[in-house]
């Protein structure tokens, strides 16, 4: 391991280049993803869940599965649209993260007794998150780089970030550990999105109106999904309000 000087003294260009490399991604994930079983620490004892707890957890996981599948399909599609190699490489690492999330959520559904996760997702997923997925994929398919990045890496990621943090305050130990490892990935996705949108706005401020229009169109879907899932899980309303601020703060920082 090479020693580094004060990391905060790095030149901004050196920092930007480094954090979007595959090496950085691998160095970031290698410890928290090692020695896991189905996305969580193998030594965590599984708690016996009551029937109503299983039911609520199943619904939450079905919603997460739709959101994560949306991000997997969108981020892999966005690799082709990315304006430079660094962004393409970052989005490829994001696609890997999202694929892992989909896999561990499906596995968790099976572990709590869901025999056919795909059918259960189809039956239970909230219409708002399905609609969000459709609109996100439409933006990707119509080559709208900045709008799709906003929808995915700002709106969707902020919703997931809030939902997973809220869930982690009330969930069983196995699910919490799984979600906390997913949250570590989400931090990178959120940061990439916010910085990329800011860069787009700096380069072409006229894009602000269109990004704001997508924001207005999608934020109610994202917020509805987050609030619905958090209420299903019986998260305290105070916590829901506080965590919901993450998204509003990000939008405010971007001036949208």
């Amino acid at each position, binding site marked *: *391991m*090479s*020693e*580094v000087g*004060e*990391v*905060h*003294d*790095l030149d*901004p260009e050196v*920092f*930007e280049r480094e*954090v*979007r490399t595959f*090496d*950085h991604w691998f*160095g*970031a994930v290698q*410890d*928290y993803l090692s020695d896991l079983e189905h996305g969580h620490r193998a030594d965590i004892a599984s708690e016996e869940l009551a029937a109503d707890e299983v039911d609520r957890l199943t619904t939450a996981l079905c919603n997460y599965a739709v959101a994560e599948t949306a991000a997997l399909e969108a981020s892999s599609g966005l690799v082709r649209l990315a304006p430079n190699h660094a962004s393409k490489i970052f989005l490829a690492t994001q696609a890997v993260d999202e694929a892992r999330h989909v896999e561990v959520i499906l596995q968790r559904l099976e572990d709590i007794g869901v025999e056919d996760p795909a059918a259960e997702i189809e039956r239970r997923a909230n219409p708002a998150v399905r609609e969000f997925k459709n609109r996100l994929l439409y933006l990707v398919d119509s080559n709208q780089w900045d709008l799709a990045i906003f929808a995915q890496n700002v709106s969707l990621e902020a919703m997931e970030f809030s939902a997973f943090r809220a869930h982690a305050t009330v969930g069983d130990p196995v699910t919490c550990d799984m979600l906390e490892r997913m949250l*570590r990935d989400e*931090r*990178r996705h*959120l*940061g*990439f999105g*916010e*910085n990329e949108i*800011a*860069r787009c706005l*700096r380069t072409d401020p006229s894009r602000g109106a269109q990004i704001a229009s997508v924001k207005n169109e999608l934020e109610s879907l994202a917020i509805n999904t987050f609030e619905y899932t958090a209420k299903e899980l019986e998260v305290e309303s105070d916590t829901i309000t506080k965590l919901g601020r993450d998204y509003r*703060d*990000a939008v405010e*920082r971007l001036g949208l």
Partner: protein
Amino acid sequence: MSGSSHAAAEAGDSPGKIKETKPRRRYELDDRGFDEVPRKYRKYYRKWEGPDDELAPNEALCPVCKIVMRSVRELRDGDQLYCMACMTRVRIVSGENGRLETRVTY
């Protein structure tokens, strides 16, 4: 000094170009088990424990991802920090009542 190992209060050195008159306190950072960045950067970060988690003078909270960023120096207005967990640049600014706050630099 809850957030960081305190090493010494030395003569001032500045990350910026402006000569500072008041010396900055320096800190020796220890690894707090933050495993979301490559190992060589880990000592510069730690998890935030929530609103009751008091930040040390060399620490600031990333406004984007809520991770505590740590410096070897006491932080001052104008300093730049990097959050490697979410790839964000942050600047320290003096807020109301002289309290240090963070602003994202895009």
